[in-house]
């Protein structure tokens, strides 16, 4: 029991990101409302960003700006900035994805007057 807790305590960020990712996936698969699916997609992508950001964290490490007192000799003294930089790009990508998705959702709502996927499919089949 103790080892299990220690294992969980050491790797809690992995469990956390995985749980959030599965919540997002559930929303994308199980919800019929298109807007809720968009939210699910957002949660899914954010979970992966969380995962990346968490791997850059380091206990006791400073911000990654070159400090003459520390020098470059000891990389352990700095937090790893690269995952954060990558995620800035990923955030931009996810904003663009969500933007395109919302534009499509808006157009679908204008055409059909509803965002429930089964109602839209019923209307399309009825014609």
């Amino acid at each position: 029991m103790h080892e299990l807790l220690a294992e969980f305590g050491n790797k809690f960020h992995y469990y956390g990101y995985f749980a959030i990712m599965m919540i997002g996936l559930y929303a994308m698969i199980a919800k019929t409302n298109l807007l809720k699916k968009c939210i699910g997609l957002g949660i899914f992508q954010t979970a992966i960003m969380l995962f990346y950001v968490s791997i850059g964290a380091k206990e006791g490490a400073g911000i990654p700006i070159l400090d003459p007192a520390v020098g470059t000799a000891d990389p352990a003294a700095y937090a790893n900035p690269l995952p954060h930089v990558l995620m800035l790009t990923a955030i931009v990508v996810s904003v663009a994805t969500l933007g395109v998705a919302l534009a499509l959702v808006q157009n679908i709502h204008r055409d059909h007057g509803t965002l429930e996927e089964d109602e839209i499919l019923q209307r399309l089949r009825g014609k």
Partner: protein
Amino acid sequence: MTGQLPILTIAPLLFGAFAVTAGRFLFRRANYAVASLALAASFAASVLLAIQILTHGPAIYFVGGWPPPVGISYVADPLSALMLAFVSGAALCTFLASKSEIETSYPLKNSAFYALFLLAVAGHMGIVVTGDAFNLYVLIEVAALSGYAILAQGRERAMLSSLNYLFVGSLGASLYLLGVGYLYIMTGSLNMADLSAIIGRLTPDGLSGSTALAAAWGVILAGLFVKMGLFPFHSWLPAAYSFSAAPAAALVAPLTTKVMAYVLVRMILSVFTPDAAWGVPAINTLILVLATAAILYGSFCALAQRSLRKMLCFILLSEVGYMVGGAFLGNRAGLTGTIYHIFADLLMTLCLFLVAANIERGTGGRFSDMGGLFRRMPVTAAALVLGAASMIGVPPFCGFFSKWYLLSGAIAAESYAFAGALVISSLVNAVLFFRIFEIGFFGAPPDHTGQADQAEPAGESGHGHPGPIPFFRDEMPPARLAPLCLVAASLVVMGLLTGQIVRLVVDPILPPGLG
């Protein structure tokens, strides 16, 4: 100048997209010319690059002058250089063939369409040439996002289909990103060549030595399979490609699945080595089962379709099964078949989707509208015959040679289910296309072209049409036919050049020890 060629293949497209967007209010009329020029410049640079690489060997371009592993590198080796030439050539042909179609399908929005088209091509070419695993993710999204936007225009269902494609596609790309994250944790690098070296050091006896690396490979594979529409992840593909307007489908359908298969090959060859990638037999077996299922599912669903474009979408699904299966047979012939089939299938799909666009405009895309096709649209019908012969696998078309390599790979790997699926799929393709030929030759045209609702079942409605149908009655203008004829002819040319392509492009890429 020649050192800058890898970036010059993509730069004209990005600047062209910007120029078209900026010029949409000022120089509307010039926009088509600007976009064509950008595509032509990119194609010219790609061809020059391919010639340079094939004569002088691979080149690496450092974007912004930063050497790897810190900076992003663009790697031009024989495989990526030829792929660049094929992608840009396919895009140029689609664009030239679709001028009138774009103007009628996207009224008032054609400048936006041109810009998105250029961005989509730039994204696909970037995926091919980049040597950085994270940059690859960004470019996948560049290609996909512009793809969603142009696929959303079209018939009434296009919007919903495109949104579903967006959900599934973003999921796939996110899974890829997650896999890259695992790779980064284990190696601390994102450059593909660097990754490969570090992975080799970390796990000298295969991926089974490291759970995290095996997980990374699994997650990346899952992401790529979602993006290329392998069997259980395919549901978005037929809807997204068949309800959209024809030019968008003719661009995205040949490029996306093939470029994703190219990424799969890149991952096997350049990031993980073949030994590591094929190191877990259970995964290989599972993927071969999926590929076999994809081939059979695509073929039999294609039999049930009643419209040309929908049928082509399901054939595309089975072609994805060919490429994935060949990559996991675990031998040289199979991988050669996959790489060759990426090029061959790009041309075949392009040819058939351009044909479908012409037929939809000329007679209507349902089988019941296509009576008398060979008299009404002889040139388009001839291109259809060439594309179909290549899909079926008639020598000397390129489709025959990729099937040959795949089949010999399957037999060498003793994977008889996959070999059987390949043969069955060829036979089903023959049935599919000869059914269209029969309607086109013997069926009578419906009274109102394009009004399929009043059409009688073709093949048995010969009564009430006394005079023969005039030749060329519904044929498209030469501007639409010339690129199509070029693509159709290239199917034969590529088939005849098979030996050279394998010797110059495939063999230098594969590791020498691969059996």
